[in-house]
């Protein structure tokens, strides 16, 4: 009973993959809170007992005092576990906002399912804070997370492409086997369709 539930709660979190969310463990969470309540009641009854015995509660140091102290320390330990649980999950929630998207609907539904309502609210509030900052500074910060590379790539044409392809910077006809230097974004749909192939240098 002394901090046991809190320990289990933290262990449950730690057993997940780093950076990944498991579903919120309401059962353990509530049991930990329950344990805190029990500690608290026992502290109070011990204090009452000391008062009834006419002892100076603040300065008295008898077995009851130390008993109450143990309950106090257990309570605090559980509190830290509870806070750690919420805090570490909140960290992941913030990380999701950065990496996946600032709208709740950007998150895959299986992730949304692992969040409590309160966590969804926290996500929304934090996103708003981020958006507000970015708006004021005038720069989007959740894009461009990896260093930029050359936007142009070398491709070889695999099929005859009859119509002139309209590219963002030129218009050309592409004969089979010819090689060209194109913007990756322009080439991607053709590569996906197998009409072009990217060449590494």
């Amino acid at each position, binding site marked *: 009973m002394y*901090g046991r539930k809190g320990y289990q709660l933290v262990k449950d979190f730690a057993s997940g993959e780093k950076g990944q969310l498991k579903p919120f463990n309401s059962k353990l969470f509530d049991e930990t809170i329950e344990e805190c309540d029990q500690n608290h009641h026992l502290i109070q009854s011990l204090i009452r007992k000391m008062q009834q015995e006419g002892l100076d509660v603040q*300065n008295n140091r008898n077995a009851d005092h130390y008993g109450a102290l143990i309950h106090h320390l257990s309570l605090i330990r559980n509190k830290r576990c509870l806070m750690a649980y919420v805090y570490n999950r909140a960290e992941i929630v913030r990380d999701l906002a950065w990496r996946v998207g600032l709208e709740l609907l950007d998150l895959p539904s299986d992730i949304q399912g692992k969040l409590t309502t309160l966590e969804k609210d926290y996500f929304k509030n934090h996103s708003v804070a981020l958006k507000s900052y970015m708006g004021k500074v005038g720069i989007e910060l959740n894009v461009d997370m990896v*260093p930029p590379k*050359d936007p142009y790539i070398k491709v070889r044409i695999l099929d005859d492409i009859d119509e002139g392809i309209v590219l963002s910077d030129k218009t050309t006809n592409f004969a089979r086997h010819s090689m060209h230097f194109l913007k990756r974004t322009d080439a991607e749909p053709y590569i996906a369709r197998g009409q072009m192939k990217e060449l590494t*240098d």
Partner: protein
Amino acid sequence: MAGQTDPHISLFSPQEIEFMAEDELVEIVPNMNMEQLNFISGDFGRFIPQIPTKVPLWLAVALKRRGKCTFRPPGWMSVDNLTQILEAERESQSTFQALPFSYVEIARLLIDHARDDIPDMFMVRSLVEDIRDVRLHKLETNLGSFQGTSAVKISNVSAMEVNIVRPFVRRALEAFYKHDKPEADVDRDTRSSRQQREANNEPRRPLRQR
């Protein structure tokens, strides 16, 4: 714990290391005419056929890929020089030879994009890999013997090597440091149940009765 293992904040990704290396100046020989480029990062050119000029590595690679120049490999990248360096690295257990801070990235980019401009490219590549391996191994073995608890000089270590070794050395030095200091500063704990430190032990409890 805070900030030390978080990849977002403290460590550089390999792409970021390469990104920083791409600002190193290298010599190219243009084969075309082009006006001076007035970039935010500096002025480069103008470009005149056959007249060598120095530009940042990223720009050099971009021009090379577009068929607009050839590279002049830096002096340190010759087979002779690299062979010497490799021998010297193997000879000494504790010192590192002087190499450009971003030698790994510079060599890799040149080999990837300008192999025809590098004499004995395969030899060069293999030498650079060997040098890298010897140096990394040296760093790892020396980890245990870092003396001194407050400052360790690491001469001639390169960017990539710093980045790889950083977390290990940190932990080793921090362990030394904690043992060396008589009283650790009062550690402000993170919200983790693993660290249980109470700020006060004898409570004067103004707990109210219910």
